[in-house]
């Protein structure tokens, strides 16, 4: 077992858990979305870490270079980033509507108003 070789993955898990903690422990909806973004980015880093080859180069062909890193995760993550911003935009739109309906974006307040009705 190579401890240094797994360092990347451990940091990814630390980031993932930070994002997860923000999502479950904070009541503010925008903060939750930021937490979700952190979580999402940690997954991106996980994929890209797996695609890396030691001594390899970026997957753009050039004469004199033989070792390239794996292009497939790059493709998956590239599209995932753009889809991620699209879903974040949708989430923010929902937050704005919730704020208009309830006058707050705090989970507790929204829950309270729901209970009153």
């Amino acid at each position, binding site marked *: 077992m190579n401890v*240094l*070789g*797994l*360092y990347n993955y*451990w*940091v990814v*898990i*630390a980031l993932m*858990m*930070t*994002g997860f*903690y*923000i999502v*479950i*422990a904070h*009541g*503010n*909806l*925008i*903060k939750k979305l*930021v*937490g979700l*973004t*952190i979580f999402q*980015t940690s997954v*991106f880093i996980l994929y*890209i*870490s*797996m695609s*890396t*080859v*030691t001594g390899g180069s970026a997957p*753009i*062909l050039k004469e004199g270079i033989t070792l*390239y*890193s*794996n*292009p*497939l*995760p*790059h*493709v998956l993550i*590239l*599209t995932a*980033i*753009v*889809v991620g*911003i*699209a879903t*974040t935009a*949708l989430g*923010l*739109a929902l*937050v*704005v*509507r919730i*704020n*208009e309906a309830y006058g707050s974006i*705090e989970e*507790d307040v929204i829950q309270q108003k729901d209970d009153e009705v």
Partner: protein
Amino acid sequence: MEAFILLALLSFLVLTAIAITRLTDLFAVVMLSGIYSLISALLFVVMDAVDVAFTEASVGAGISTLLMVSSLRLAGRYERPSRHNPILGFFVVLVAGSLLIYATLDMPSFGSINAPIHQYVAPHYIDDSMKEIGLPNIVTSVLASYRGYDTMGEVAVIFTAGIGVLALLSISRRRSVEREKTEHGRMHEQMILRIVSKALIPFILLFALYVQFHGDYGPGGGFQAGVIFAAAIILYAMLFGFPAAERVVNFSLVRLLSAIGVLIYGSVGVVSLISGENFLDYTALAADPVSGQHLGIMLIELGVGITVASVMMIVFFTFNARALQRKEKYL
């Protein structure tokens, strides 16, 4: 050296993430998340994923920050301290994290060439894509040709998200036009900024076109170019007011264009289907298979670029039209 840079950047990321959890000023949180995204994009460059870094830089650090900030204007700036006990959440996170760390113990070590991920399709892409597609950028070949069907799904998702934002936040057109005169905000006094940006915008648009069409040979492509193009228009809108920007870019045309991009993508597939090949198999588009691939990739990248650019503009303009309307209602 690379390992050291990686280590340093990863520590920066963890520090930033922890700082984000502790802050209650949401503006500061959004700014730190911008920094977070800059660091992660830098990390992608170090790990040889240049195309991903390109996308993360333009999308994560640019558009995402702008969107978050403009929705903060609609939803308030400060977070209320939570009344829940944080211990329970902390415990859940700790357990989940240690389980995940236990799972990583079986993973191949970082950068190992013998890892299973490098054994299946990747050697085929790296060795044969030059012969089959004829483009130096393997990522573009895989994105647009080998996995073209997948990318079409992604473009459709982006289009759907644009429609979703429109459905949630769109307002009646007449009312926002009435507000035209009062909307220039605090940017009116920034004369140097306005002049310099006005001079820069054509170059930004040109750069977007370069990224769009150079994506076959270097990092870049439709996704990134679309975002940069939209960013230039958004810059104009921020400095000269949204009504002025709507005179430059017709909003209903933008809405139409977002659909046209997906349509271009789909019809390239249908044309190849009619010519007797599989859906999105571009070899049918020209007599020579390689030039057919070139043509097909260029067309679908164009479709992607158009859709991404117009959806980004739609999202941004819709958020701001909403903000304008709210101002009208409450002030």
